[in-house]
């Protein structure tokens, strides 16, 4: 055995050991708190998970929240596809300048913190907002929205429409990321061949024989993911439909009273049964997404995006109009927050108000005039949590991805799939469930841990690591092994082989994963809302929520909340723009 073989053997042992450790650590981080939480809730309520699930329907409020969640998530999925599909189509099927820039801008909502999105839509629909100024009053539901309510006996249609639009806005990039890349690289010969056959001589035939089989799975996959994210949406539901509860918001609202022996056993029972039912629904949705993603691995030949675009010619006027409306839809909530942060209401007596524009709210937010912590302190907390999350999530996710890839290469496909699915599982546990799991789990294990400053990092790791795995695994699969083989033939050491044959190709995806981890951690709301119980640890997203919850007779409350939300938006937007620079051309997005 030569030196290289011995070195390689030990290097492989070390790799296996590190890989197995990472997978075990992630499994413990992800599932131990939930295991302890279930144990705690079973102890408090005296019933098993199965019994709790069977008693779910006994409480009418549970059924109301289940119905509302299913309805809003389904409507959101349909609306997102209806809005996103024409945009993806026109974005993909023409030759035009600035396509990358527009594509990146349309993807911004997905990384926008949910609390910022909620503030954006509140600013959009509130008095003085863009929608209100064009006569669509979704907030107070006057005008034709009120007529809809009166005619159909539908309670609060304006709030419901606002929620659906906000979910469509938030998930628009999913449709674009899933549908646009295959359309943009689709070989036009397939379309041409079909148009020359009787089976493709009409639009309906082409739809049936080409487009539905080709992009149908991608559209369904995007719809299922939108359903998943809308199902677990918390900040948007909390602020846009305050009259209705989803399963997620009902758990969050009852979370404070749960898990305490002899106190509000009903709250513990609601959390136990609701979380179990929600977990089941999310698991089924995830299984559906996995199946659809497998079908989505299109076997139709792809060609260079530039060649395909050139063949199809310039963007039509309908296309230009569609993209323009898509951009307006994307930018309107973000611009609205910004404007609302400068707009301050002043009373002129007799219940009349006027508005002035100034930087006062930004100054007040930065100095913390209205809150226990200032925006600058909250920013420090947010950045600290985000950096610690990054330092753990990125290496953890990287090693898990590398383990999956190594298992696939060594024909351990089943084990690779198990690790892959395990790394996805935290996505089936919503942010509020994660927060409650950690809260109740710690209560069961050691309540003194509540004073540990870095406690909120735990849910952030759980929620961001799956995204790192989703970005890094395809990037590792895409590396041509010939580079590593060439490095070996040049007699380089295993570390140098890894450095030149793999690491150099993973730099871009790693930067994308790191930027998105930072952005997601900075904007995380659901779990932090449950866990951050002392004001001094408030993050920017929690501060926005706290400010907005204050009575609005003080004219500075809303602008200060909007200014704080704007700071968070600028921060995540900057990270996103940075990440986009490193995203490979024609990439579906990894997320």
């Amino acid at each position, binding site marked *: 055995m030569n030196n290289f073989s011995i070195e390689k053997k030990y290097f492989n042992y070390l790799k296996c050991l590190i890989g197995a450790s990472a997978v075990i650590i992630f499994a413990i981080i992800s599932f131990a708190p939930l295991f302890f939480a279930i144990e705690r809730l079973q102890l408090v309520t005296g019933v098993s998970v199965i019994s709790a699930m069977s008693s779910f329907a006994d409480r009418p409020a549970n059924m109301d929240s289940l119905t509302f969640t299913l309805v809003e998530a389904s409507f959101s999925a349909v609306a997102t596809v209806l809005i996103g599909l024409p945009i993806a189509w026109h974005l993909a099927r023409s030759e035009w300048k600035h396509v990358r820039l527009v594509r990146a801008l349309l993807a911004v909502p997905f990384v926008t913190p949910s609390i910022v999105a909620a503030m954006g839509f509140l600013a959009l629909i509130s008095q003085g907002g863009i929608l209100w100024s064009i006569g669509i009053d979704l907030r107070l539901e006057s005008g034709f929205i009120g007529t809809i309510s009166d005619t159909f006996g539908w309670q609060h249609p304006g709030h419901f429409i606002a929620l659906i639009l906000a979910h469509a806005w938030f998930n628009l990039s999913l449709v674009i990321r899933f549908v646009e890349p295959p359309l943009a690289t689709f070989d036009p*010969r*397939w379309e*041409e*061949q*079909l*148009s*020359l*056959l*009787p*089976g*493709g*001589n009409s639009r309906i035939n082409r739809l049936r*024989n*080409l487009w539905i*089989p*080709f992009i149908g799975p991608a559209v369904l996959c995007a719809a299922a993911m939108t359903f998943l994210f809308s199902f677990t949406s918390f900040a948007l539901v909390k602020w846009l439909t305050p009259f209705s509860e989803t399963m997620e918001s009902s758990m969050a609202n009852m979370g404070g009273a749960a898990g305490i022996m002899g106190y509000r056993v009903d709250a513990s029972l609601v959390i136990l049964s609701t979380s179990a039912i929600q977990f089941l629904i999310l698991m089924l949705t995830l299984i559906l997404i996995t199946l659809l993603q497998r079908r989505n691995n299109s*076997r*139709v030949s792809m060609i260079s995006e530039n060649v395909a675009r050139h063949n199809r010619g310039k963007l039509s006027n309908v296309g230009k109009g569609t993209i323009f409306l898509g951009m307006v839809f994307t930018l309107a909530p973000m611009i609205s927050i910004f404007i609302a942060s400068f707009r301050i209401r002043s009373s002129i007596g007799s219940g009349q108000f006027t508005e002035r524009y100034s930087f006062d709210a930004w100054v007040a937010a930065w100095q913390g005039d209205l809150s226990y912590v200032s925006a600058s302190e909250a920013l420090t907390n947010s950045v600290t949590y985000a950096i610690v999350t990054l330092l753990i999530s990125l290496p953890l996710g990287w090693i898990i991805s590398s383990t999956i890839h190594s298992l696939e290469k060594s024909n351990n496909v089943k084990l690779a799939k198990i690790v892959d699915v395990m790394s996805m599982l935290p996505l089936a546990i919503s942010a509020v469930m994660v927060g409650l799991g950690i809260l109740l789990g710690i209560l069961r294990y050691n309540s003194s841990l509540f004073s540990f400053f870095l406690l909120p990092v735990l849910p952030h790791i759980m929620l961001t690591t799956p995204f790192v795995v989703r970005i890094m695994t395809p990037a590792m699969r895409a590396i041509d092994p010939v580079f590593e083989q060439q490095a070996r033939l040049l007699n380089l050491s295993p570390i140098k082989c890894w450095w030149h044959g793999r690491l150099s190709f993973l730099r871009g995806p790693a930067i994308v994963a790191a930027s998105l981890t930072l952005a997601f951690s900075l904007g995380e709301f659901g779990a932090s809302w449950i866990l951050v119980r002392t004001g001094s640890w408030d993050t920017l997203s929690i501060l926005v929520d706290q400010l907005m919850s204050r009575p609005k007779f003080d004219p500075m409350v809303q602008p200060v909340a909007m200014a704080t939300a704007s700071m968070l938006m600028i921060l995540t937007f900057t990270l996103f723009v940075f990440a986009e620079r490193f995203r490979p051309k024609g990439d579906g997005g990894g997320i």
Partner: protein
Amino acid sequence: MEQNIDDTILKIENLAKCFAQKTIFSAMNLEMKNGEIIALLGPSGCGKSTLLRMISGLETVEEGSISVINSDGNKIIRGDENNVDAKLVGLIFQKPVLFPHLNVAGNIMLGMKNPPAKKLQKEVAEKYLDDVGLSGFSNSSIETLSGGEAQRVCLIRALISEPKLLLLDEPFSALDIKSRRKIAQETKQLLKLKGISALHVTHDAEEAELISDRVLIWQELVG
């Protein structure tokens, strides 16, 4: 539309094509009789594929004219609009274009004007597949076919759509010499049997001789 008075199926007059101000070919003239198989021999990159795309209506005609006689005996003049008519012209691409979400039978059914009910499709497809020596392939996945088999399925699909004129864009170029000869002969037999006119472009002189009634040299057709 003018009424066709002679036996011509295709007439090309003073045809030219430019891409990005670069002339690909100009002053092309060609006339083709009904039922005739013509092989057009020319070097790679001379514009043979572009010509076929123009005849089929996939590419616009800016200068000159192309007249194709349709199924009613009327003359269709290709203008500058993209005018694809599946009843009139069939095209087989250089690389087989078979839809991977359908099996062999499903792909063949795309060529039928009135496809039979689902349960009968396999049986009908088998009848056609037998003509090209592919019996038993109707349930096969597209990915399991070799290049020659895939191109035979494309040929069957194009023939059952009963075009007046079939255009063949070097469809056998990726095959080995032996397979190429065999499939060229089979194709000629099938075309003659069905009475379909065909314009076959290639850069292989032997293949041109094997498949056609008449071989034309590209340089002699253009100005």
